[in-house]
């Protein structure tokens, strides 16, 4: 199994260069916001290990929000972020990007502070690499190659079922499966279907993952006396803050929403990003650092097979601190349109959203960090609309495929390759196709 990694490059945009950068990024698209996989600056489609990628200008739409705490507005210069999720090592991807697209990347990053023609591009990008506080991958170890091979398998089997369904239907389940296996075997021999075995799991990753699996509960266990001592103070502080923290939830400007909506729904999947201030003070910061640490652990070891909590529509996501941890952004790639994504969030994982996002300035009021908040549907949507950023360039390696499709295609393959299945299992398997 070859696990995925994420790459994140962030650099401040040089003064006076933002508009020009926007225009340049727009040239990479085939439709507004939607990348041309063969664009000359960074032909994403040529990187066979790349799942999703984006360029986004991180420019806080709510710079004045700290004023509700009586604090002065901090104006952070806009930052260019490049994000990618890939199979295998992100270092290797970075090196490949530089090797193949040096000119394009140079022209993009030349809009950033501290970049000049004399810089070594790879060094410069490495220096500007940032690590997310937590990251989520829908299915750890499912590679782009596997996704494409399995999509082709589904296409072939689907066409076979369309053509032969009637004859197959009278057969017993075991015979149906046998015939499908024979068909796939023939397709493989003819070279029309290729199903490569999964690549070996890198030893280093395996060790690090195991250490992480053990170390974090161990640290928690050792720290538990302290945590228990802290708990009453934590709860007292939490309640004090929850009852006093101001909400900042004006109706979003329709124009702001329209600008972003114009970029959405070009594919069955959409990119998403929200950015905002953390509530000031050490209490919220320490809380969110601790919780993201737990979330990252959960994503690594528990939610690594098709769903984050109950939400099954997210391909990749990350939570990132920026501007000296005064601000945070959440970026994801989700299936469906924004309204259904938000509704899924609210109806299925409101508690999880509250845990993290309620540490952001202006969030709808929560109780005990879990209750309320996102379950105030309209306020929560206003909060998200207000903090959402347009994504200037977005690429996905497998247009038209949802995370459900990817899971279904993998299950199809599993059923073809397994040594045996019961009649009941076969029926359930066929029902997915």
């Amino acid at each position, binding site marked *: 199994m070859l696990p995925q990694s994420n790459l994140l490059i962030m650099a401040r945009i040089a003064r006076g260069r933002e508009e020009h950068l926007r225009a340049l990024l727009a040239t990479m698209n085939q439709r507004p916001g939607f990348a041309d996989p063969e664009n000359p600056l960074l032909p994403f489609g040529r990187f066979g290990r790349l799942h999703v990628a984006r360029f986004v200008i991180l420019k806080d739409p709510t710079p004045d929000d700290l004023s509700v705490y009586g604090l002065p507005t901090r104006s952070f210069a806009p930052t260019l972020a490049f994000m990618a999720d890939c199979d295998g090592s992100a270092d290797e991807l970075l090196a490949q990007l530089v090797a193949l697209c040096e000119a394009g990347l140079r022209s993009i990053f030349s809009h950033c502070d501290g970049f000049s023609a004399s810089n070594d591009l790879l060094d410069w990008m490495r220096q500007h690499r940032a690590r997310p506080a937590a990251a989520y991958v829908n299915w750890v170890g499912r590679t782009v190659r596997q996704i494409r091979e399995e999509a082709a398998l589904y296409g072939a089997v689907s066409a076979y079922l369309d053509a032969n369904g009637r004859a197959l239907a009278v057969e017993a389940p075991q015979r149906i499966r046998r015939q499908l296996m024979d068909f796939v075997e023939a397709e493989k021999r003819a070279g029309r279907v290729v199903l490569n075995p999964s690549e070996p799991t890198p030893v280093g990753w395996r060790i690090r993952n195991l250490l992480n699996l053990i170390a974090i509960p161990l640290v928690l266990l050792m720290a538990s006396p302290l945590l228990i001592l802290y708990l009453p103070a934590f709860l007292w502080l939490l309640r004090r803050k929850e009852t006093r923290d101001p909400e900042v939830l004006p109706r979003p400007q329709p124009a702001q929403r329209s600008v972003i*909506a*114009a970029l959405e729904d070009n*594919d069955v999947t959409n990119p998403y990003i929200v950015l905002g201030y953390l509530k000031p003070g050490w209490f919220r910061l320490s809380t969110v650092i601790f919780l993201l640490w737990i979330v990252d652990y959960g994503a690594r070891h528990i939610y690594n097979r098709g769903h984050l909590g109950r939400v*099954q529509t997210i391909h990749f996501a990350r939570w990132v601190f920026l501007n000296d941890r005064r601000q945070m952004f959440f970026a994801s790639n989700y299936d469906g349109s924004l309204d259904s994504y938000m*509704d899924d969030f609210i109806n299925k994982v409101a508690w999880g959203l509250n845990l993290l996002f309620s540490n952001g300035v202006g969030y709808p009021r929560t109780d005990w960090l879990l209750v309320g908040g996102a379950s105030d549907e309209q306020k929560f949507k206003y909060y998200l609309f207000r903090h959402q950023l347009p994504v200037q360039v977005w690429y996905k390696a497998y247009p038209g495929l949802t995370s459900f499709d990817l899971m279904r295609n993998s299950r199809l393959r599993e059923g073809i390759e397994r040594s045996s299945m019961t009649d009941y299992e076969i029926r*359930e398997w066929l029902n997915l196709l």
Partner: protein
Amino acid sequence: MAQSTVTDHAALRFGAPEFEDIQGIARFGYGNLTSACFYLLRIADLALAREWLRNAPVSNAVARNPPPETALQVAFSVDGLRALGMVPAVLEGFSAEFLSGMAGEEARSRRLGDIGTNSPGTWRWGAGSVPHLLVMTYATPARFELWKRELTGSLWDRAFSKLEELTTSDMGGREPFGFVDGISQPIFDWERRLELQNVEAEYRNLTMLGELLLGYPNEYGKYTDRPVLEPSADPDALLPPAEDRPNTRDLGRNGTYVVFRDLRQDVRCFWQFLAAEARAANRTPQALAEAMVGRTIEGDPLVPWGENDVLADELPDESRRNQFTFNRDTEGVHCPFGAHIRRANPRTADVPPGTDSALKRLVQTLGLAPQRARDDVIASARFHRILRRGREYGTALSSDDALQPGSEGEERGLRFLCLNANIARQFEFVQNAWIMSTKFGGLTEESDPLLGNREAIAGSRLSGAFSLCRGDGVRHRLRGLPQFVTVRGGGYFFLPGLRALKYLASRV
């Protein structure tokens, strides 16, 4: 466990429903008034339009015995409210979707499936020529002509210019393809006795009043945003106070949004396609059509039903044909996953079936419960209900006649109307995520078998498929479904409460 209970003290707290202030269509379908006509108007003279509106005998929702022989309802587009002189500060209180309009943004058209042959550029009304007013008239056949004449006298002629006079026809409770229609409806909690749970473990048709009317708590227990005014903006105290903000005036209270879509149905194309496919599917054309709809032509759901599927206290108000869930057909053997009624209302609770103990619930909430692939893909149907009030138009064409050679000739179809308090979360969600989605419930390359626009999506060549499960697991897939339904016009309207209507007609 977490199942809604129905109690009386809420009713005591809030008083009786304000039927005299609610336009009747929110409560009645006026089924006995089989003649109806929808006028789309623009205001030609503001003072005269106000005068007509002040005097219009708009019907309220009070039940009468015998039922009235006529009815009149009035709704406004955002352009209409502007034409009436509503100031921007008040207008901004309406929802973003209403302000933008059904055809106002390309992104919205994309989400609603209004692309290709459905795109607003091809519409007869609603895109280029946007109406100000939607005036709905209903009557018994005997009274209809006279009723229209009474309403559309010389004042009407001077006050308005008529964009469209959309006729309807009585097809005896069937839509033009021949199916009994209008069965699945939410039942509104007029008496306000429903006590919401955070997590509803059972599907119910009984629905919070705030999903229908503005000014009341919705399924989240919250008040949907609407224009709420300072008392100074209502010097004659025409408007009621807002329940959630007593020192203000609620322009939305007892009002709702009307979604109007003018849909042309190609009945010949529908039955001829089915006749051609019937042999390969080993079914009759009618059986195929029934699988696409998810009901028999007489309206019975294809899923087996059991007692206690849906909250029993709703029984007196509805037929058993609305009294089922798909929990007994999780594999789509009886009713295909992509059938129209399964898309339009999947009848799911907030958690998958069988989440019945506290421990299971916790495990399920954390997303750790073992489950089958489709078990939790679509949840919480209660936030996406609409009240349908459509009427057919054109002459009925039986399935037998439709199979005779010939071109469609006369237009027929549905004047689709629905009422909801939150257009984005109700109508638009249903249309986008359920009806038009080619990925609904884990399906592939298929949108709604009746309403789908058959437009290809990125990465896939077609969307004109429809899968039937044969029971043994091997699907039968119809391919190349033509487009049976085309959008000919549409718009979003605000249907005010009657006090709000007075307010709009007097001053804004």
